[in-house]
């Protein structure tokens, strides 16, 4: 009898201890991450978010008026980059994060522009602050915020957009025109909305700047043979192959370009060429390809003191270098939210919005400030002034930052057969 009383008392004591431990842990702040996890821009964003959340939690969490609350990351697969998946599915995923997973904030996606634009109304409906970090390059996102601030004030984007990217490309092309005398471009894009828009945008931009766009080809998703276009570009004497594709098969384009030894320099926005494993996958045929990684820090570079710390932390946790567009911005979004919540001393959306609007943080890819009207990250070629791009060239197996000049670690190189 006495033994059972002791045992009962011990169990009660244990239960009290456990309950006390649970009570002492503050309620986590839930970050909902709607991402297309089967695609680069989804899985690298997930890794960036989790890395940042782990670092913050390991350091004690988010300080809200003296109480430390941890971040809890809830990822949901929106599948919005898969062909044929309707936008409504991505919206359901976002709503599930808000209603079922009780997300306090949304970070990451949706990843496809159409889905992200449609989700803006949902964020307004549920009054959820969101920082868009990956996949969406359309200027329409920030434009909508600017045009209807009260409705879309919850939407922020900390990664670059098409006009800024085109400005980067144009500056690089101007340099090549001056230094090498290049003046003919051949545009090859994938048959998807953002790539076609990017191609058209570039065509227009180049045409007004003493460049001749000798042709523009649009390829269906899944194309593995680019020989006709490449042969044509050679015949027309193109100096630049401007590419805009997010399909993995575009690796074949670079292989064919390299095999044909075409006297043109490939550059552009190419999903497959962003990944660290691309060199091995193409057997080095991607050498000299210039890729826009949208934001700095998506490849090793010394942009700010934080950049290489982030790169090393990412390598330690995930076993490889930051992979491409969406990695550094997703990582930074968590730190931006932490900073804003701590300054607001609450998770109340309106207070956090004000804190984000007034934020001035030196991040992984430069000074992080949002435009107060459009909630778009302020872009710059100087990391002390704004967020800089990650323009790299594949050189001897490495992604070398070549632009903007203030953070470049190498010069742009031409293939030996172009000299």
């Amino acid at each position, binding site marked *: 009898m006495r033994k059972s009383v002791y045992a009962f008392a011990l169990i009660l004591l244990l239960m009290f201890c456990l309950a006390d431990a649970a009570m002492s842990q503050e309620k986590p702040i839930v970050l909902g991450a709607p991402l297309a996890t089967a695609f680069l821009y989804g899985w690298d964003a997930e890794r960036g978010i989790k890395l940042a959340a782990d670092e913050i939690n390991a350091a004690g969490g988010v300080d809200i008026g003296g109480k430390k609350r941890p971040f809890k990351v809830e990822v949901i697969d929106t599948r919005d980059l898969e062909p044929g998946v309707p936008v409504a599915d991505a919206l359901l995923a976002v709503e599930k994060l808000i209603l079922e997973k009780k997300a306090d904030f949304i970070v990451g996606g949706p990843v496809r522009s159409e889905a992200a634009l449609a989700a803006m109304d949902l964020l307004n409906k549920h009054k959820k602050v969101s920082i868009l970090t990956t996949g969406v390059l359309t200027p329409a996102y920030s434009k909508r915020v600017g045009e209807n601030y009260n409705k879309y004030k919850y939407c922020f984007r900390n990664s670059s957009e098409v006009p800024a990217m085109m400005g980067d490309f144009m500056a690089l092309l101007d340099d090549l025109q001056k230094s090498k005398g290049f003046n003919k471009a051949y545009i090859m894009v994938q048959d998807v909305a953002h790539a076609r828009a990017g191609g058209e945008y570039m065509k227009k931009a180049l045409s007004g700047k003493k460049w001749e766009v000798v042709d523009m080809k*649009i390829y269906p998703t899944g*194309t593995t043979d680019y020989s006709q276009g490449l042969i044509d570009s050679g015949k027309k004497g193109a100096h630049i192959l401007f590419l805009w594709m997010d399909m993995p098969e575009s690796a074949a384009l670079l292989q064919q370009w390299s095999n044909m030894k075409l006297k043109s320099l490939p550059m552009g926005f190419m999903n497959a060429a962003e990944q660290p494993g691309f060199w091995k996958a193409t057997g080095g045929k991607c050498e000299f390809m210039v890729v826009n990684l949208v934001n700095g820090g998506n490849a090793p570079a010394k942009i700010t003191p934080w950049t290489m710390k982030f790169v090393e932390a990412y390598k330690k946790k995930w076993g490889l270098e930051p992979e491409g567009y969406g990695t550094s911005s997703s990582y930074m979004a968590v730190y931006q939210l932490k900073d804003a919540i701590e300054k607001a001393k609450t998770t109340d959306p309106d207070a956090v919005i004000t804190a984000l609007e007034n934020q001035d943080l030196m991040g992984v890819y430069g000074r992080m400030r949002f435009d107060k009207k459009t909630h778009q990250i302020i872009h710059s070629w100087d990391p002390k002034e704004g967020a800089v791009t990650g323009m790299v060239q594949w050189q001897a197996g490495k992604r070398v930052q070549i632009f903007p000049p203030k953070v470049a670690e190498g010069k742009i190189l031409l293939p030996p057969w172009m000299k």
Partner: protein
Amino acid sequence: MEILIYGIINSVILAFMALGFTLVYSIARVPNFAHGALYITTGYIAWVLLHKLTGFPYLLAIVIAISVTAVIGALIYRFILIRIRGMEISEIIATYAIGLAILEGLRWGGLRGGTFTLPHFIAGNVQIFGVSVDYQRLIIVGIGIVTFAALYLFTHFNKVGLALRGIAQDERAAMMLGIDSDMTAIVSLAIGSGLAGFAAILLLPLGNIIVEVGYNVLIFAIAVCVIGGLGSWGGTILASFIIGFAQILTEAFLSTHYQMVVALLAIIVTLLIKPSGIFGKQKELEERV
């Protein structure tokens, strides 16, 4: 000249994509909608052997990958299709479900992104009449001609091949002559799957091993077979050349982004004008009745 050269290459590539599908349908009368999944599986197995086992010989990796795919094909018939044989809708649903499970399983298991590739057999390019062509594409055309010839000889002069044709022509009569229908179907699924794998080994070095390619290969295989006539080998080759050249001509004279439309449009036109396909005989008889 580049239209002619790349037209031939494109046509042989399409014929390779469709060959396994045609063989299985012509003999076992099974529309194998897992064809694209088996194609990608072979590429993935070869990739795993080459990249996870350091120094693994490429040729051995190819042999193992194709053999495993052939066995998978045989097992699909032995354990699943045998129970629903003759019920065409069920066969389509079952094989499509198997294909879906394989492809999405691979995606879930990590087959994502653009870094899964197989090396070219021989790297480099050659100029043919002033047109630059890489060796891999020339190898595809060469092996394609040999493969088509070998398959013809196999089905016309080999005992097993003759048995396969016998079943394809008249199953009941063949069974009366002692040919085992189920065993023949197992063999045809194994060979058809092996051919899908063989095509993968030849064609995947031109691009990447990705799940979406599996779906595309299935679409092209169906397009070629529908146009050529389901189960007709001659029709398959002819249809491959029609679509292959149509795509290249579209790219040269119209616009590159209509290439996929050409294949799908060809299916619709064929179904409207000659539903049995160019060389489709069986359906033609039904149509006459």
